[in-house]
């Protein structure tokens, strides 16, 4: 029996994509393996680490916990589309300036989560930043420089 293929249409970083996906394919796998957008990382695959974070219909989500089929009709921003977002380019620069990147595996998810935080709270306190990034794990930096980088990018555009 041929496996089911589900037609999906979604907007990724402003571009409309059409595809047919098997039922078990995750949105993260679709982004990485079908669209070749490998910025979003697969780390834990179970919602713990945030390395796969993208913004779906305006809300930050873990793409490893979403089926590609579920994303039909959605509007998605991945790390590849971040520089076109308010704060995006600034966050990329402040992460570099502050040395908030070591191995870099957490970084794409971290900047997307930071973008989402600043969209909802343009002037966060350090505690609010820690809370806003608490769904993103980093095993290298100890977080201090990440918090400083987000502080640096905050404020009105």
């Amino acid at each position, binding site marked *: 029996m041929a496996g089911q293929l589900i037609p999906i249409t979604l907007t990724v970083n402003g571009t409309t994509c059409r595809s047919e996906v098997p039922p078990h394919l995750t949105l993260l796998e679709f982004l990485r393996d079908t669209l070749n957008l490998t910025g979003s990382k697969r780390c834990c695959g*179970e919602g713990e680490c945030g390395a796969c974070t993208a913004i779906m219909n305006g809300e930050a989500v873990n793409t490893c916990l979403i089926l590609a*089929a579920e994303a039909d009709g959605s509007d998605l921003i991945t790390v590849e589309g971040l520089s076109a977002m308010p704060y995006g380019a600034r966050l990329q620069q402040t992460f570099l300036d502050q040395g908030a990147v070591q191995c870099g595996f957490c970084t794409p998810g971290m900047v997307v989560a930071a973008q989402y935080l600043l969209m909802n709270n343009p002037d966060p306190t350090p505690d609010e930043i820690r809370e806003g990034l608490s769904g993103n794990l980093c095993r290298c930096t100890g977080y201090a420089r990440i918090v400083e980088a987000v502080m640096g990018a905050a404020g009105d555009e």
Partner: protein
Amino acid sequence: MSALHYARPESLADAIAILEQYGPGARVLNGGTDLMVRFQKMQVTPEAIVDIKRVRDMSDAIVWDGDSVTIGARVVMTRLIRDERIRRRYPALVDAASTVGSIQIRNRATLAGNICNASPAADTVPPLLVHGATVQLVGSSGSRETPLDGFFLAPGKTARAPDELLVSITIPPHRSPYGAAFGRLTRRHGVDLASINMACAIDAERAVTFAFGAVGPTPITVKDTSGALADHTVSDAQRDAALQALIARTSPISDVRASAAYRSAMLLVIGRRVLAQAQQRRADFDARE
């Protein structure tokens, strides 16, 4: 092995027909923050995934009827937490929902999923229990409403039939003064399941209801109608004795998160804290209205 089928019904009738067709082989997909984890670890191998997010006649709204509120099955934690009226009326529920996972998780996770998943540690369940919540279910044999207390049968198991959908959760009105609070114990701050959790509510008649999670196969609800715990006029010794009598009804076990002895000791410590906050909120209740 039969192939997995993904279904995205647009009406309740269609959703129920698919659930009936596949029986226990079907899994309802709501926010997916429980199901997708278990699916990817192959802990569940469904024949059909029934995505309910496009079911038109399944509400994703928070609807007030006087002082009673009905929360649709597709309302996510973030929506609930941001709702001003919910924040004012049900701070214990908001506190519990705010602890679930991370922001990314709360943007997808639903109350209905937290209930149907039936984890003994589900955080939003104790506040819903002390508030006397009911759940509305629709299946092939019609719709029914049942108290949340009694809905949980065992870890991962509820009284929901395989062809039933939980469509909404209702919290009945409470006469003033009323106060409730939520507390939990975790090994670390953020993204951790509770070693124990609990909620406490004190009603107008001074009855105190506690619901405890993660200290038995299902969350449990216990009540003290003596009136002794309703405010802080009671002595510390009497309060602890009354709390211990309630805690004695739990049956904590030892596991990766905590030992049974530690859980028992912490039930009293957190019980005191949660009780004091519920007393305070009850005292402030009229001022808040």
